[in-house]
C-alpha cells in the first residue's frame, strides 16, 4: 500500500471518528500534561471527532512521547502490535524526534527506531494547538504546512514579529 493509498484509507475510515491511545516511552511528563489538556475545555478534542481510549485494541492512532527507552521498546512494540490496522503512529515532541537524547545504551533516541512513524509533531512540548494540528495532519484534514516553510527571515524583523 502506498503512502497515498494509506492516507486515502485513513481519510475514508477515520474521517469523522478516531480513537487515540497514548504511549509514554520515557518523556518528562510535560508532553503527557499537554496531551491531557487536549481533552480540557479549552481544546476539547472530542468536538473534532477524536477520542481517547485506554485499550490499544480500540485505538486507531498511537500518540508516542519520549525518546524510546531501550528497556521499554518491547512494551512499545506490544502496544503497537495490539492495535488493529490500519493504524497511525504519531511521534510527539522533541524527545521522540531525537532532539533531547541520543541513540545510546539507555535510549533509542527516536521513536522511529522502533515503530513505523507516520506523523511527526515537533515541539518541546508540542502545545495542545500543535497537537491538534498534528492530529489533523494525521487524518489528512489539515495541511502539512512545514514542508513549505523556509525558516529564513529575509524581511525586516520588526514587521513580522507577533503575527502568524
Amino acid at each position, binding site marked *: 500500500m502506498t503512502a497515498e493509498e494509506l492516507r486515502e484509507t485513513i481519510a475514508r475510515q477515520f474521517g469523522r471518528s478516531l480513537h487515540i491511545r497514548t504511549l509514554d516511552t520515557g518523556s518528562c511528563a510535560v508532553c503527557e500534561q499537554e496531551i491531557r*489538556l487536549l481533552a*480540557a475545555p479549552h481544546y476539547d478534542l472530542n468536538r473534532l471527532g477524536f477520542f481517547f*481510549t485506554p485499550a490499544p485494541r480500540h485505538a486507531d492512532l498511537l500518540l508516542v512521547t519520549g525518546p524510546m527507552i531501550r528497556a*521499554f521498546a518491547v512494551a512499545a512494540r506490544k502496544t503497537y502490535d495490539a492495535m488493529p490496522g490500519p493504524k497511525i503512529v504519531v511521534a510527539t515532541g522533541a524527545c521522540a524526534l531525537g532532539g533531547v537524547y541520543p541513540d545510546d545504551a539507555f535510549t533509542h533516541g527516536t521513536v522511529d527506531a522502533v515503530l513505523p512513524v507516520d506523523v511527526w509533531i515537533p515541539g518541546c512540548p508540542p502545545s495542545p494547538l500543535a497537537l491538534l494540528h498534528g492530529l489533523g495532519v494525521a487524518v489528512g484534514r489539515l495541511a502539512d504546512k512545514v514542508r513549505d516553510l523556509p525558516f529564513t527571515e529575509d524581511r525586516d524583523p520588526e514587521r513580522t514579529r507577533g503575527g502568524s
Partner: protein
Amino acid sequence: MTAVEPKVVPGEVTTFQVASPDLEAVVRDLATALRLADMFASDGDTTTLRLVWANDTAGQAGYIITETPLDNGIYPALSDIAPAAFVEECEIYEQFGIRPATGKALNRVMLPPHTGQPPPGLPTLGHKPEAEPEEARAQHTVGGQAFEFPFGPVRQVGVESLYYGLVTSGEEVVDLYLFSWHKHRGLEWRLQGKTPEQALFLVERTEGLSAVALGWALAAAAEAATGSCVPEAAERARAVALELERLYNHAAAMAALCQSTGLTVGQSAAEIALERLLRLNAQAFGHRYLFGVVAPGGVTRPPDADAIRTLLPGAYGEFNRAAEALLGTNSFLDRLEATGVLTAAQASGLGLVGPVARASGQLTDSRRVPGGPYGDETAVATGTAGDVLARFTVMLAEAAESVRLIGGFLDAGTRLGAEAGIPEFPRTGGAGLGWAESPRGEALAWVELGRDGRITRARLRPASARNWRGFDDACRSQNVFTDIPIIEASFWLTVAGMAR
C-alpha cells in the same frame, strides 16, 4: 566518635568528614534530630558516600553533608537505622556495585530485568554490580493466599508509564510495589562531562513538571561549587517562576483529583484554571512549562511583570472558584476523607517531603532555609490527618501563598531578572549543593565540577524520587482498589522524577 560534632549552620551547607568506621554511630546520632534528605556515592580515587541531612526547624534550617570515603567499598546498612536510605542503597548498588555490609536484599530500581537476553551493557557510574540480578535484588514474590494484580506499564491515556504490582487477597490491598525502570534515562550518567549550562538543558527535562525547581537546584549547586553570586533580582525572577510552577502544578493536581473521583465538571473547572495559568507562564516567561528560565548565575530572560500582574488575578480566581466549588461538593470530599492515610511516623521515617509530608504534619519546606529570596514570613501550610483531603487542602493553601509571594516579588524591585543575555559562568572546580522547593517538595542537586568547569558527578534528587516510597504505605491503608488513583493524584508525582 568524630572529632567534630556535625552541626547545622542555618542557611548554610556544612560538610563534615566522617571516617568509615564511625559512620554508623554518626548516622544513628543524626537520624534522631535531622531528616536524611539524600544519600549518594561518587567515584574518585576511592568511592565516597555522601549523606545529606536537612534541619527543618524554622530559623535554623540548613543542610549538612557527611562525606565518608569507603576504603574497602563496604558501608553499614544505613536503612536499618534510617529507613529513608533504602531506595538509595539500591541505587548505589546498581550504579557503583557497592552493597550494605549486612548483605540485605535489595530491590530493582533502575536496571531493567533481563528478559531472556544477555544483560544489556548499561553504563554505570562506578563498578558494575558483580552479583547476578537474582541475587542483587530480591524478586518481589507473593506467598500464601495473595496474588499480584499486574497493572501497566502502559496504563491509562495521558499518564506516564509505570508498573503497579498490586498484591491483593482478592479483596484487600495487601501490598503495592512499583517498577519504573522502563523510564530510566541515565540522567546522572549523562550529566558527566557537561558544563552547567549544557546540564541544565537535560535537568529541566528530567522532570518537566518541576523544571524550574530542578533547574534552580542545579544552578544553585553549580553556583555554590564555583562560589559565584546571583543577582538578587535574578533570584526573585527564579522565585516568581517557581511559584508559578507551583500554581499550575496544584491546578493540575486538582484536575487529576477530580478525574480520579469521576467528577468531570470539577475536572473541567480545574483544567480551565490550569490552562490559564499555563498561558500566563507563556506570556510571562515565554514557555508554558517555564523551560529555559533558569540559567547558571541568573535567569535567561526577565519575566513580563505586567503580564503577570494583569493575568494572575484572573487565572487564580479561576483556580479559587474551582477549589471553593470542590470544597462545597460533599460527594467529592467523601472520597478524599480518610483515604490514603499516611501517618506522621511513616512520613518522617521515609523522609518524605513537600505537600505529602506537610499534610502528615511534617514541617519541611526548603523555602525556609535562610539566605534565599523567600523571607521569614513565608507561610507553610500543614495538615495533620495525612489523608488525601489533607493533601488537597495543603495544596490549596500553598497556591494562595504562592500568589501572595509572587505579588511580593513583583513589588520588591523595579526590574526582575538579568538585563539581557546569560552572564558568562565561571569555569572553575568545586562541589556544591543546591535546593529548591518544587511543587512536589524539596528538590536537591549536588554537583562536583572538575577544574575545567565540567561536571564530574551530578546528583539529582527530585521530590518524586522521595515521595513515591510513601505511596505504597498510603495505598495499603486502604481496602478499596478504586482509591489508588485518588491517592496517586493527591501525591501528584511524576515517574520521570523517580526514574531519572
